[in-house]
C-alpha cells in the first residue's frame, strides 16, 4: 500500500515538501514505516528518532498497524504554546 506521511517544521524544511509518499507491504506497522523513511531519506534519520508518529490525529506506538487511507504524520518534539 501507499501511505502519505505529513511533515512539519524542520522535517518539512529538510525535505522541501509538506508530505512524502512511502510504499509499504500490507499489514505494515508504524515501525516498518519509520524503517522505510530512514532508507528513503537518510538525512532525516536523526530527526526521525526524535519524532512521534500520529495516525488519524492520535499519537500511536511503533506496533500500530497501518491501513490504506490512514492520515500519518511525523511529529517532532513540539514547541508551541509560548516563547517563555
Amino acid at each position, binding site marked *: 500500500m501507499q501511505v502519505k506521511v*505529513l511533515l*512539519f*517544521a*524542520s522535517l*518539512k*524544511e*529538510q525535505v522541501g515538501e509538506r508530505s512524502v509518499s512511502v510504499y509499504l507491504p500490507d499489514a505494515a506497522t508504524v515501525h516498518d514505516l519509520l524503517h522505510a523513511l530512514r532508507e528513503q531519506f537518510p538525512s532525516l534519520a536523526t*530527526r526521525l528518532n*526524535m519524532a512521534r508518529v*500520529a495516525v488519524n*490525529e492520535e*499519537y500511536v506506538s511503533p506496533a500500530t498497524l497501518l491501513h490504506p487511507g490512514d492520515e500519518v*504524520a511525523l*511529529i*517532532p*518534539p*513540539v*514547541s*508551541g*504554546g*509560548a*516563547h*517563555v
Partner: protein
Amino acid sequence: MFELWDKALSLDACLRAVQHAGAGAVVIFLGVVRNNSRGQSVNGLEYDAYKPMAERKLREIGEEIDRRWGAKCAILHRVGRLAVGEVSVIIAAAAPHRADAFEACRYAIERIKEVVPIWKKEFAEDGAWWIEGSTALTDKPLIVNLQASQR
C-alpha cells in the same frame, strides 16, 4: 473555543467563550513574542502546525480541565509569522473559585508544550532556528538550523 488563527488573536473572543454566571474567577495567559531568546536578540517567530490535530488536542486539554477543575476554558494559538510584541497564544480559564482558575490556566500552557503539534522557528541574530522540544522540559532545547547544516 479551541482554534488556530493566522491573524491577530482576540482576547475578547476568549473571554466571551468562558464567562458564565457561576464563574467568579477568570485567569488569562498571554504568550507574547519577546525581543530576545537564548541570549540572542530575536526579530520574530514563525509557527508551523498540524492544524486539525492541534485543534483536537487543544479541545482535549479543555475537556480535561473541565473534568479536573470544573473550569471552562478557551485557547487560541497563532500560526504563521509573528513580530516581536505579538500574541502567540491566549488561554482563558473561568471557574467558580480563583485557585481552580489559576491551576487550570497554568496546566493548559504546560500541557500545550507537551502534546499539541505546533512548532516555532526563531528568527534571531545568529540565524533562523526551528525550536523542537520544550525549553520547560530540557535546559537544552533541540534546535535545528537547516541553513547551517546544509552549508
